[in-house]
């Protein structure tokens, strides 16, 4: 088996200092392999978002090691991490967080344009194809603010795919959607996972969503309480 896409060892995260310090992660070790679709389950406040942010290099662990694609990111500087994220990691957040002044197509292009310094024709074509893949071709030129919740989330997924990342981190991607839209989004993620082999780590409270993933990691009280691969 090839090296894991992402691996964290003995990660601790403490917020604050002294009497008010909160020890949120207490030695989390986790490796995600290529093509895996992992559900991260835990009660509210258990540290799912905190772990995802550390895995996504948006936050630094208090201690422990983060390795992605064989590169140790623990001590990398901000510019290095930014470029690394841009190339290798896609994000889908609970609240869609599209850029409101840009169209659906422009939002999808963002990860490419911000790296190139301009919107290349090639990127435009790829963004259009991604929008078609999430079923939103006719909405390409709509402003983000003119889209429904489910549509926004599908645009956000297309954006996460733009630079062809090895890993997509999704923090409660369906938390803000009704059941029908939520299942539509999960179907979409599963299809992308099957077709492109992109690894996913999806945090959720929802067992039905977790059931669609190939692996189930439970976080509780700051440690991994269970880790089970579905028998296929």
């Amino acid at each position, binding site marked *: 088996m090839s090296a894991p896409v992402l691996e964290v060892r003995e990660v601790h995260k403490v917020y604050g200092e002294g009497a008010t310090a909160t020890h949120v992660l207490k030695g989390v070790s986790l490796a995600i392999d290529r093509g895996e679709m992992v559900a991260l389950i835990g009660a509210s406040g258990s540290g799912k978002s905190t772990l995802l942010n550390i895995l996504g290099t948006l936050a630094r662990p208090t201690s422990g090691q983060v390795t992605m694609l064989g590169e140790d990111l623990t001590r990398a500087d901000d510019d290095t991490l930014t470029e690394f994220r841009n190339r290798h990691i896609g994000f889908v957040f609970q609240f869609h967080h599209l850029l409101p*002044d840009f169209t659906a197509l422009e939002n999808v292009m963002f990860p490419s344009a*911000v790296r190139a310094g301009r919107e290349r024709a090639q990127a435009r074509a790829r963004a259009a194809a991604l929008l078609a893949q999430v079923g939103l071709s006719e909405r390409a030129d709509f402003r983000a603010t003119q889209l429904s919740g489910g549509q926004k989330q599908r645009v956000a997924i297309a954006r996460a795919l733009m630079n062809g990342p090895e890993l997509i981190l999704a923090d409660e991607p369906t938390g803000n959607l009704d059941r029908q839209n939520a299942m539509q989004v999960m179907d979409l993620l599963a299809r992308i996972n099957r077709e492109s082999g992109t690894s996913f780590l999806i945090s959720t409270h929802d067992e039905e969503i977790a059931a669609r993933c190939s692996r189930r990691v439970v976080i509780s009280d700051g440690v991994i309480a269970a880790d089970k691969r579905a028998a296929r």
Partner: protein
Amino acid sequence: MLYGAKMAWRHLGSAPGQTALLVAGVAAAVFIFIFMSALIGGLAELLVNRTLGNQAHVTVAAPDRPLPLLVPAQGRHILAARQASTSPSLGLAAPRAWEATLAAFPGVRVIAPKLVGSGVLIRGEVTRPVTLTGLEPGRESAIIRFERSMVAGTAALAAGGVLIGETLARDLGLSVGRAVTFRADNGNSVTLTVSGIYRLGLGQLDEAAAFVPMSAAQAVLERPGRVSAIELKLDDLYAAPAVAARIAAATGLDVTPWTETSAQLFEALRAQGNTGLILKVFAMITVVIGIASALMLTTFRRRGEIGIMRAFGATRRFILYVFVLEGALIGLAGGLAGALLAVAALSPFPPIEEVQPGQLPVDLGQGSIGLAIWLTTLGATLAALLPARAAARLDPVEAIQQ
């Protein structure tokens, strides 16, 4: 960074009301800046025209004669205090050659020699003390602008002619074409014909001065081929001290700039300039504060977006660039709008020479329009720097979670 520019442009376009208000605020400050520059400049010009208009900017005269050594110096130390000689100097010989020399100095616009002496004008029983000045025919109005001030006759001096002021003409009962006798302090006399009467509004010149052709003055004052001084006007009035110093160093002559003879006026002009400067500085401070606070609000409102951009690969530099550019664009747009407004509003003002009492002397040419636009853009850019830096340093996690 085309993409950053696109982003900045979109941000500004997404809140057109707010952007328009900001641009209008900046434009108002720029308008004040230009208006103040034009007004202070116009006032200074008016003041200078009215007072210095009839004076030389730089006066070049012969150096004071060395005093003769009265005591032989053999074997003794002589301590001597040098005092400027009290008798008028013989004047400057070979004025033509000096004129050519002076013309070579950069910034010299007008050159006019004069020969000055004193005496009385006599008509019948009445005498009046006057300062007699010889002027080169053809250059009568080079320093004192007689042409504009004639009430009778002509400013051009022909042989045997004399120009006198209105008050003096009235005192002596003279009109154009009448004869009058000048008797110099040295006893020489000459009979002259009044060829022009002027009114300058300057007491001494209107009631106790007479102007004759140079050759006539040299003859009656017994200074053949000499002048008392060569007077200059410069392209830039305020260059007078520097030009004077250069001429003095190069020629060894006695050179006096107007800033020495009219030190009070010079001080007044400076004070006025400083007042204008303070107002302009305040206008710029308004721009800086306005833009800084507006951008602080903008970056706060866009925190979530900034977090997302950072997550998807926007560097801190990129975020900084976007928001600084927004400030710069507002500054530039406001600068241009304010300048246009100022040009439109100030163009109808009459030129300084035609300003009537009670009118504002506004000189749009001194409005520092280019400087105003440039300073505003610069100020806006600097003002944007602080909020933009804060935006660039936002913690992406916190920004996304809010």
